[in-house]
């Protein structure tokens, strides 16, 4: 017994180091698995407050760019509005079915990050604005990521620039799907993996969301194909996708809630059983 005490007292520095290091390591490993970064995340009162103050100063510096983006988006929306009113066959669309499937919330980006391999963003909307886990996040240009954690007033987003992120996507011209991942290298390019060899792929084609995951609606733009190569197995393509979004410069984002998600999930769960 005496010896054990002596050992502990003699090596107390090393033992404390070991203890603290293992705590840190455990937290690190935990944060590497999807949806597990529960305790250590920036969706809390303290960090949200600091980032909020910072954002309120920061916003003034890119008012002009923000204006440009808004104008451009207005133009696009107007274009869509005019085009649909001309071509729409109103008898065809069942409005009670399609209307209002997605609820959209506007949020400010409080913390952007794109230099690490596990990028997580912070938004200024949380549970009080009925934001929950697994809502989609996008800008006018394309998708950003998926809501990971929420606190009362803030939420964190698992960015598409995160090696853990996997989002269903497809090639616009065909219906060949794949999963969108990131190799952690450049914030401009992401990878679309597991695309069937039967897909006709051309450099310059558009990649958009596939609508299979019930997080994003079908057809939101993601990026364009810059190059592609066969996998080692030879069955699938891995495609380099250049993002429409400049992930290094994001101000305001839209949070998408699929109101039918619970219904879709319960249906799929039934099939599984």
């Amino acid at each position: 017994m005496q010896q054990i005490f002596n050992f502990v007292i003699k090596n107390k520095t090393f033992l404390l180091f070991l203890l603290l290091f293992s705590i840190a390591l455990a937290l690190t490993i935990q944060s590497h698995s999807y949806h597990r970064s529960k305790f250590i995340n920036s969706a809390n009162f303290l960090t949200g407050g600091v980032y909020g103050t910072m954002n309120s100063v920061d916003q003034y510096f890119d008012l002009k760019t923000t204006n440009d983006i808004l104008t451009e988006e207005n133009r696009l929306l107007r274009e869509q509005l005019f085009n649909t009113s001309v071509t729409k066959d109103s008898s065809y669309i069942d409005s009670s079915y399609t209307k209002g499937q997605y609820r959209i919330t506007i949020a400010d980006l409080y913390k952007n990050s794109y230099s690490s391999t596990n990028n997580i963003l912070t938004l200024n909307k949380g549970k009080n604005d009925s934001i929950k886990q697994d809502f989609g996040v996008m800008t006018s240009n394309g998708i950003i990521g998926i809501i990971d954690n929420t606190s009362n007033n803030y939420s964190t987003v698992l960015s598409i620039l995160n090696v853990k992120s996997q989002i269903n996507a497809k090639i616009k011209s065909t219906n060949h799907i794949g999963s969108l991942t990131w190799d952690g290298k450049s914030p401009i390019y992401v990878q679309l993996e597991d695309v069937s060899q039967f897909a006709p792929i051309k450099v310059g084609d558009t990649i958009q969301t596939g609508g299979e995951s019930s997080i994003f609606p079908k057809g939101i733009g993601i990026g364009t194909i810059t190059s592609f190569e066969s996998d080692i197995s030879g069955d699938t393509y891995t495609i380099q996708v250049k993002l429409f979004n400049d992930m290094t410069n994001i101000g305001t984002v839209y949070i998408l809630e699929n109101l039918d998600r619970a219904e879709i999930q319960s249906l799929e769960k039934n099939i599984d059983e």
Partner: protein
Amino acid sequence: MNSIAGINIVRFVLLLLLQVVICNHIDFLGYINPYIYIIFIFLFPIREDRLVLLLVSFLLGMMVDIFSDSGGVHAAAAVSLAYARPILLKSSFGMLYEHQTIKFSTTDIGSLITYISLGTVIHHFILFSLEIFNISNILLVLQKTLFSSIFTILLSVLIIILFSRNRK
């Protein structure tokens, strides 16, 4: 004693804020960020108990982690640096450390740079290994370690020289 504790608390808060508000968002050339909060660990009083240093370093690293959503990578790296500090001090300052008479404001600049460079490289290597967490990306780890270290060392030395009062 109280004034030393006060200085260290102020330094802790200031460096933490400087790190999370400015330095985490520099992203020079896309991915190079300095991690200047480790200056706190470098300048921690030498006569203080090592256990205190370990605990405070862990706390500092954890705070940076919470702000940057990185799990526990900064905490792990900061604790390792704090643990390795006596060895670094001994190898860079030699006899001065053995007599417990180092004053960071009066030591000669060469030893100071050696001390900070060694510490920074160790800290950054652990930081990026844990952050990337993939042995096949070892080149990326080394690349990030190298470039971020250069940035951190430059800034740290400048900050230490700038804020030490009576350097000749």
